[in-house]
């Protein structure tokens, strides 16, 4: 079996341009077109967040598809499951909008869709070979690799390590 790929963040490269946000939103629209997506209902939602930390660090944050995914075990309706590729997904047909997953995700990456009353998050773009955000990032701050290829490090620690490297 080939190693599942993951999205990694290279913090030293992120310039905070938010191109990933737009690509993500468009990919999660019905039309998959920037101009048409703006007027769609329900409003397409972005699932990657570019945060700003003083003094001047940009930190893209997105679902880590955690190994023992707290959100999946906490969901009170069975809406969250893991695919064979290791992607943790929310089935919106099953979601009842109780927000338990929002309460337990330690990364704060589950959004609430107010129009549909459903939870949403990164699904690693099941229709694409490379997730839209990774493809769109002009500085290659987001990369899509296997853990091995990236650093040989465990997934939870990947981002942390990158920051310490950056500080060195």
């Amino acid at each position, binding site marked *: 079996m080939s190693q599942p790929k993951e999205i990694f963040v290279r913090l030293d490269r992120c310039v905070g341009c938010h191109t990933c946000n737009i690509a993500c939103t468009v990919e999660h629209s019905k039309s998959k077109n920037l101009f048409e997506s703006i007027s769609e209902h329900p409003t397409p939602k972005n699932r990657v967040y570019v945060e700003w930390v003083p003094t001047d660090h940009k930190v893209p944050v997105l679902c880590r598809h955690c190994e023992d995914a707290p959100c999946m075990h906490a969901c009170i309706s069975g809406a969250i499951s893991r695919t064979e590729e290791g992607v943790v997904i929310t089935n919106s047909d099953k979601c009842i909008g109780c927000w338990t997953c929002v*309460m337990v995700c330690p990364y*704060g990456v589950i959004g609430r869709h107010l129009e549909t009353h459903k939870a949403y998050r990164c699904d690693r773009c099941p229709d694409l070979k490379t997730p839209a955000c990774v493809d769109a990032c002009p500085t290659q701050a987001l990369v899509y690799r296997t853990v091995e290829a990236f650093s040989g490090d465990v997934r939870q620690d990947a981002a942390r390590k990158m*920051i310490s490297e950056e500080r060195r």
Partner: protein
Amino acid sequence: MVAKQTRYVIIGASAAGMAAAETIRKLDSKGSITALSKEQDMPYFRPMIPFMITGKKKFSEMMLIGQGPYQSANINVRLNSTVEAVHTTDQTISIKSGEELPYDKLLIATGSRPHIPPIAGIEAEGVFALRTLSDARAMALRAERTKHAVMLGGGLLNLKTAFALLERGLEVTLIIQSPEVLSQLMEPNDATLIRDALIRAGLRMITGCSASRILSDANGVNGVLLDDGREVVCQMVCIGKGVRPNVDFLGQSDIKVDQGVVADRFTACNTLNVFAAGDVAVTFDSTTGERIVTGLWTNAVEMGHCAGRNMAGQPTEYTGTLGILNATQVADVPFVSMGIVHTSGTDYETYVASAPKAYRKLVFTPDGAKLVGALFVGDISRAGLYRYLIREGRAVKGIKSFIIRRQLHYGHILKETI
């Protein structure tokens, strides 16, 4: 030598029991796993039963096995199997049918049942306390000939039930002793936005009152007499006065019970090869270390996983739960309540911010070093970050101002950790 197959027996086939079964199966592919339930239905997501009252979901949409993380095969679930006794010396349990079932490892995961206060007339037809799918079905039937339902108690369960009944077009009146709804999860001043939302949604409320008698005739309930002498005409009454652990069947055994089944840090009971998890177990609060009995799906699942590991021979310490760990949406207002949120008369360092559509309260230790509780009403985004901090019990240092202003994001925590 061929190792003997371990016989795992689990009393209770719900959150805790099925989570344990799932974990055991991952660690031990050979042992036999039997989960017993006294209910007639295959395991289901208990918090979804209000949808049986509204009719918005079918039973098949609430089933647990095959959904979310519950994917393991080869777990033998036995329904209509009430366990009446546990014999720890010969390691067997007695089932109502007369059968004696031997175990090598036993998990007690019998959950809890509604607490029914001693109100005169409470045994009348049409009085409910929602806990099982059967209760929900019976309520749905009664709702067909109900115009007005009275809810006794203003906790989360009764609010969820009230909304299901409102959705069916019933008139619903909530009768609560405390000055505000949800007194277990917040203080009266914290509940204003929620109360307003309930009223907008059409719920009627009578506070500072309790029922002294339930009135009935040949058709069942026809009213409730309040302690101030008022009489409320209704055709259905729902009791929401908290839950009690299901421990009665352990009366004759030497398994230690103190409110619930007492489990140590490794989810083990005082007798050999017996474990406990979920609503029935006495667990502990991860922030205060206090012994607590909870009624939380999240705790039941986590503790069930942990017990499963211990039963399958991987000693694992349970990290505990927060006594309060609730998220939900009432009418159009979402809220999250976590950890210590009742602060009146205490010296916790507390920050409150109130806006027309959002309210928050952040509670720190008296020395201000650690976050111990958070309540968000209206805006609950990124609540998980705050739960993480409460649970870790780490000094918040440089990120405290972001916490208080509710601007915290993962970037802050990342920078703080390293």
